[in-house]
């Protein structure tokens, strides 16, 4: 089923660089010269969102139009400031931060044109001022900024936008609609169906009130390889397809040490060859920190490093060694991440990023190892079925993604009760977790290596 859909889309000739450049030009045109107060850009995983933000910010600044940038986390803010400084070391950039110690990356202090302060007044006159939504919310201005860029706008809650929207006249909203939705720890059902439901995403509120704002989409993922983009696009972005900027054969993953024939090595070879690997453990109900699955994840990482992996890509024709820093492990829960870290430490591996989907959002690696959110579970819950969670985990890699999972997930999905309540006036979100999970699972089963620990 999926196969035929991919074929349809690759049938016509497609120049990714030209398509992406055309989309970027249209976005910049609307941002710099458009009449409307807002421009919305949907960016699938690895489609160059940060590059776009940096470029739009620099062009606005160059046109003599100072702007504020709103991001969601301190790490994102620091990253943006570093990228701006890298592109133009003399560009005056302000980093507004909280007064807590260690509120920003000390590396920013080294940058000559970057000024950091906890007070917005200290940063007056800077071309660009960057901060988190939480910090901006406590900031008062006499005159609103003429321009703003709101980054990760789909992960921003509507009420957070409400606290900062008074600070600017117009804004470019950029984000990935396929990742995890914002949530609230208390019930917000009473506002369901309202255009300004405070617990919904900033973009849904914005578009509900301004339906005719120009909306753009970045059409090319530069991160996801040709083996991954079609699946991720079809499973998580069914109505807004994108494709990979590279073709089959542009990227290569190879190992210096041959396979020892074990399940772990075979799944590595499968993933190196096809971009995907499923290491399937025997069916069993387990608690979240399934020791066998955790150990399997650690072993996969260990072998990835021990076998001297090397990645060839359009960036470097010479193979670049696959180092620990280029590998990530993704889990659904924090205690799983902690268990994997412990297991890796026992193998002497320390540099690998091990985190939950929430914390891996926006990051990029060569190879990812994923502990499937439904592995070993006796039941699927809304949390584990959430589309965004699986999307984040399946779309962080440039070369290959290896999923470790217990058998039986397909049955688990089939037995999942569907008795969801329906709120009037709330737009149904597609795809639903059930469909997306099945699509990914069906694809992974073609790259399955069974393994008995």
């Amino acid at each position, binding site marked *: 089923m999926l196969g035929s859909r991919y074929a349809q889309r690759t049938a016509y000739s497609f120049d990714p660089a030209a398509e992406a450049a055309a989309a970027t030009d249209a976005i910049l045109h609307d941002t710099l010269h458009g009449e409307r107060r*807002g421009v919305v850009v949907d960016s699938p995983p690895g489609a160059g969102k940060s590059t776009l933000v940096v470029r739009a910010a620099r062009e606005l600044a160059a046109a003599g139009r100072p702007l504020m940038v709103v991001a969601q986390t301190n790490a994102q803010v620091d990253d943006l400031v570093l990228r701006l400084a890298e592109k133009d070391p003399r560009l005056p950039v302000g980093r507004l931060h909280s007064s807590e110690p260690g509120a920003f990356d000390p590396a920013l202090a080294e940058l000559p044109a970057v000024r950091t302060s906890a007070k917005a007044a200290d940063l007056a006159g800077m071309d660009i001022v960057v901060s988190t939504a939480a910090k901006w919310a406590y900031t008062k201005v006499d005159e609103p900024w003429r321009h703003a860029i709101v980054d990760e706008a789909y992960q921003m809650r509507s009420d957070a*936008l*409400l*606290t900062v929207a008074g600070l600017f006249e117009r804004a470019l909203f950029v984000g990935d609609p396929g990742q995890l939705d914002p949530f609230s720890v*208390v019930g917000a059902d*009473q506002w369901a169906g309202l255009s300004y439901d405070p617990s919904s995403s900033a973009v849904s509120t914005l578009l509900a009130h301004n339906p005719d704002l120009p909306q753009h989409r970045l059409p090319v993922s530069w991160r996801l390889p040709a083996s991954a983009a079609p699946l991720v696009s079809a499973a998580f972005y069914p109505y807004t397809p994108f494709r990979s900027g590279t073709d089959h054969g542009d990227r290569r993953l190879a190992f210096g040490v041959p396979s020892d024939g074990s399940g772990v090595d075979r799944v590595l070879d499968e993933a190196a060859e096809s971009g995907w690997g499923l290491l399937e453990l025997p069916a069993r109900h387990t608690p979240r920190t399934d020791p066998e699955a955790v150990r399997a994840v650690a072993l996969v990482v260990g072998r990835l490093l021990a076998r001297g992996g090397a990645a060839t890509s359009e960036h470097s024709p010479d193979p670049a060694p696959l180092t620990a820093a280029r590998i990530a492990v993704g889990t659904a829960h924090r205690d799983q991440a902690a268990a994997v870290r412990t297991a890796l430490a026992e193998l002497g591996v320390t540099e690998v990023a091990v985190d939950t989907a929430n914390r891996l959002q926006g990051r990029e690696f060569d190879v990812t190892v994923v502990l499937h959110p439904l592995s070993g579970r006796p039941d699927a819950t809304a949390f584990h079925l959430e589309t965004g969670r699986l999307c984040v985990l399946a779309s962080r890699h440039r070369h290959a993604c290896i999923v470790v999972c217990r058998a039986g997930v397909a049955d688990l999905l089939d037995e999942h009760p569907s008795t969801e309540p329906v709120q009037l006036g709330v737009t149904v979100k597609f795809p639903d977790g059930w469909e997306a999970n099945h699509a990914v699972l069906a694809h992974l089963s073609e790259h399955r290596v069974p393994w008995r620990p």
Partner: protein
Amino acid sequence: MSLIETLARMEAVATGRAAPLATVRHRHLSEQPLVFVPLTTAGEAGAPLGALVGTDREKPALLAVPQPRNRDLRFAFLAELAESLLPYVDGFADVVEWEERKETDPETGKKVPVQVELCADAPQLIVPSAAGIDFVRLLGRSMRFRRTAEQEPEAPYPAPPHVPLLGRWFTHFGERARVPGASLLLSMTGLLTRHWATGQSLLEDQHLGALLAWIDPPARHPTSTPRRQRSAPALQGVSGRAAAERAESARDADGRLLCPPAGPATDPAFDNRLLAPAMARFDAGVPGAEDEIHGLIESQLRPTWDAVWHGIDLLRGLPPGARVADRWKRDRWSYTAHRDRVRAGEPPQPRRDDAVTAAQKLASRETAQAQLDAQEALDDPLVMAGRRLAGEALEGTVTAVEMAFSEGRRPMPRPLVTLRTADRTPLPERAKLYRALPDGKTQTAEFVAYAAEEPGALVVRLTGGMGRGRTPEPGSVPEPDDAVCWTLFEHAPRGGPELPDPEDTPWTHGGPPGATGAPEDTPDTATAEDFL
């Protein structure tokens, strides 16, 4: 469900009796609560069938609607309800304390202290179940936009006086009940499930009779109510499970459930076999039919009424948590503020919140939730045990204290405290920690490192709560062998940032409200024909 609660439920299965989930009472319980047990007509929104109301468990006021299809009879019910409730609600309005609060001076723009009234106590409504809270909200919505003859002499079907006012109070109680930890309006099932784990599921716990059967199996307390006394011999020594199953489905000779649903929904069998024929007799003008209906409705209400008071007795057996009064004070502020809005002649609450109000409510409820979580843990070792299990707190014994000072022009005390703990809490680098001091203040600290040579030992650096001097205030630094409990969560989490005024709602959220759409407080449409 946390593992500790799962275990408690299984313990309850094994012993046949509910197991404690709390060692103190986490909700304020008024000296004089008002119990409200409502029933509604099946299939009809806003057609109450009857209610028991009152503050005296021996003398509830019975309100009944002999024919809910009749608008006049429904209005008569609402008028009676307003008469029995409003004096209680108003009864707390005039006994006030003075509190100092900072307000912005409109001329200087500076924050200045002002003296404001705070009601010394507030009303507390207790309904049987969560559905009862929804019904209070529904009644509030159905009444607050009605117009009395005084307000609109020309309009047809005027509502009796006070009905719109009761609607506004019910709406306020209903909204307040959404705030975590708030206690102006509580459900008995919510109160009991917070404090006890039964040997059945949370879903089954929504049946008040079954829930009580687990917590206090009737055979052990044959004297609790006359009704139970009668059936006690048959239940000698039964387990909570048997008692709960009996409460769910046992019927008397007339086919009436011994333990009718706690409302507002009625038992369909009761409707069909007893109530409908009696209503037909009432419609036909049969003498005594109205009394018969009153009797029938009371028979369905009284067991629930008794059950609610039984629950109140059980809860009173628990000592209140130390921070419960602090939360109740916020309820008193809420009551006082609504009293002021009513007195100022403000219009009823709108049908739906505007963008700013919705965001404000969400933010304050999130803060209230964080505060409640923290306060319950600090008040109750059993709740703290759950947080420790979840890796959000750790308890240990101090083994060493080493004095140290901060760098800088004015060195401040920053003692290093080593403790030994059995809690395997994963601490991120420089994790911020909090500890409650005996005087109620909070001490902050920072995780330094795990002690290398000793498993289960770690070092933290105290960073606050020691006063302003160079020497820490007495008692503010723990000593060796002291037991200490550090949490990773804040003890008094603050609210979020200020929101714009509604008239400054930004363009992203549709601009100021009222710019489009109808005025929010127009009366409800009424249809001339009004029948079920």
